[in-house]
C-alpha cells in the first residue's frame, strides 16, 4: 500500500514536468506541421508554389525565385512589398498576426497567391 502511494506521489510531479516539456516544445505537434519558425514558397514558371500556404502566427515565410525571369511579392492590402527579385533572390516576411494575406507579382499580375495565418 505504501509503495503504491509513493509511486503515485512521485509519478505526479514527473508527469506534470513531462506535460510542461511537451507543451513548451514548438516542434512537437499532433498534426505533423513544419516548424512554426519558417516556411517556404518557391516561385517558378510564373507561379507561386504552394499558391496557398497556411502557417501559424509568428512564421517567417521566405519566397525564393527559381524562375528565369524576375518577379515581385506584393500584398494586395499593402502589408508587404518586395523589391524586384531576380533568379535565386529571396524575400522574407514574418507574419505576426492571424489572417488571410493575398498577394501577387506586380510585374506579372496574373500570378497570385495567399498566406493564411492561423
Amino acid at each position, binding site marked *: 500500500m505504501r509503495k503504491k502511494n509513493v509511486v503515485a506521489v512521485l509519478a505526479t510531479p514527473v508527469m506534470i514536468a513531462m506535460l510542461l516539456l511537451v507543451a513548451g516544445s514548438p516542434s512537437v505537434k499532433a498534426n505533423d506541421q513544419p516548424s512554426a519558425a519558417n516556411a517556404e514558397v518557391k516561385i517558378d*514558371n510564373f507561379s507561386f508554389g504552394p499558391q496557398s500556404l497556411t502557417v501559424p502566427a509568428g512564421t517567417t515565410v521566405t519566397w525564393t525565385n527559381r524562375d528565369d525571369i524576375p518577379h515581385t511579392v506584393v500584398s494586395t492590402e499593402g502589408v508587404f512589398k518586395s523589391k524586384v527579385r531576380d533568379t535565386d533572390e529571396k524575400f522574407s516576411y514574418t507574419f505576426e498576426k492571424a489572417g488571410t494575406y493575398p498577394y501577387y507579382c506586380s510585374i506579372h499580375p496574373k500570378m497570385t497567391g495567399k498566406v493564411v495565418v492561423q
Partner: protein
Amino acid sequence: MAAKKQGLIDQMLQDLNNDGIDRRGFLKCMAWAGTGLVWTLSGGIPVSRAFAKGYGKEAGKGGDFSFVQISDSHMGFNKPANPDVIATLQAAVDKINGLAQPPEFLLHTGDISHLSKQEQFDNVDQILKSASAKDVFFVPGEHDVLDDNGKSYLERYGKSAKGSGWYSFDKKGVHFIGLVNVLNLKSGGLGSLGGEQLEWMEKDVKHLSHSTPIVVFAHIPLWSVYPEWGWGTEDSAQALAYLKKFGSVTVLNGHIHQTMQKVEGNVTFHTAMSTAFPQPQPGKADSPGPMKVPAEQLRSLLGITDVNYVRGQHSLAVVDSTLG
C-alpha cells in the same frame, strides 16, 4: 509615268474578286518581300509596298516617310534563352542601318531594360546611338518601372511627357500617341491605362480631323491577345473608342516577343518581335517566359518592324524582318 501608274491602279481594282483581294498583286507583293513578312492594306486591298511608294512620290507631295519599331531589348538579361542581348540589339541596329529607306526615327515599345537599372538604360542608349535614325521615342515596359514606380524611367525618357510618361507628337501629318499601360497593375489583372491618361487622350485627339492617320504605341497589347498570360489591357476599349472617328489607326505594341496582327475596321493592331529572346505562342507552353531555342535559330525569332507611310494611302505598310 504617272499615267502608266494610274492605269496599273485601275487594272488592279478591276481584278478584284468578291472578297476584295487582288491575288495577282498579292503574290507579286509576297515575291518581292523575300524572307520578310510584308503586308499593306489600302482600304482592304493589299498593295505591294514598292508600288505604293512610287505612287506616293509621283503625287508630288513628298509626304512619305518610314520609321522603325524595336521592342523588348531587356538589357541585362543573361539567361540561356539569350546570353548576349547586347549583340542581338546591335544586330537589330545593323539591320536598321541596312534598310533601303533610312527611317526618320525609331519607336521603342518598352522593356528597354531587364531590371530598370541605370547601366542597363545606359547600354541601350549607347547602342542606339549608332543607328542611322537619331530620334528615338520610348514607352516603358513593366521591366522599366521596377521598384521606383517608373521614376528613373521618367527622368531619362519622359522629360516632355505627362503623368507616368504618355505623350503625343506629329510627323508629316501623322499623329503619334505613346501610352503607358504597365503601372498600377492590379492583382489578377491585365495592363492598365487609367483614368487620368484616358482623359488626356480624349482631349488630345478631340480636334484632329478624321483623315489624320493615327499611330498609337504602348508596351502591352491594346487588344486581347491572351488574357490568361496577361496579354491584354483592361481599359483599352475606352482608348479605342476615342479613335473611332479616324479613317486610319495603327496600334503598335510589344510585350509578347512575337509578331501578331489583327485588323478591326479602321484599326490595324500589330505586335513586334523582341531583340532579346522569343516567347511561346499563346497556350503553347506552361507560362509566357523566355523560350529557349537552338542557338542557330535564335536570330530568326528576333527582329525589327519597319513601318512605311505614304501620303494618300489609307494605311501604313508594316514590314517585320528577323535578325537572321
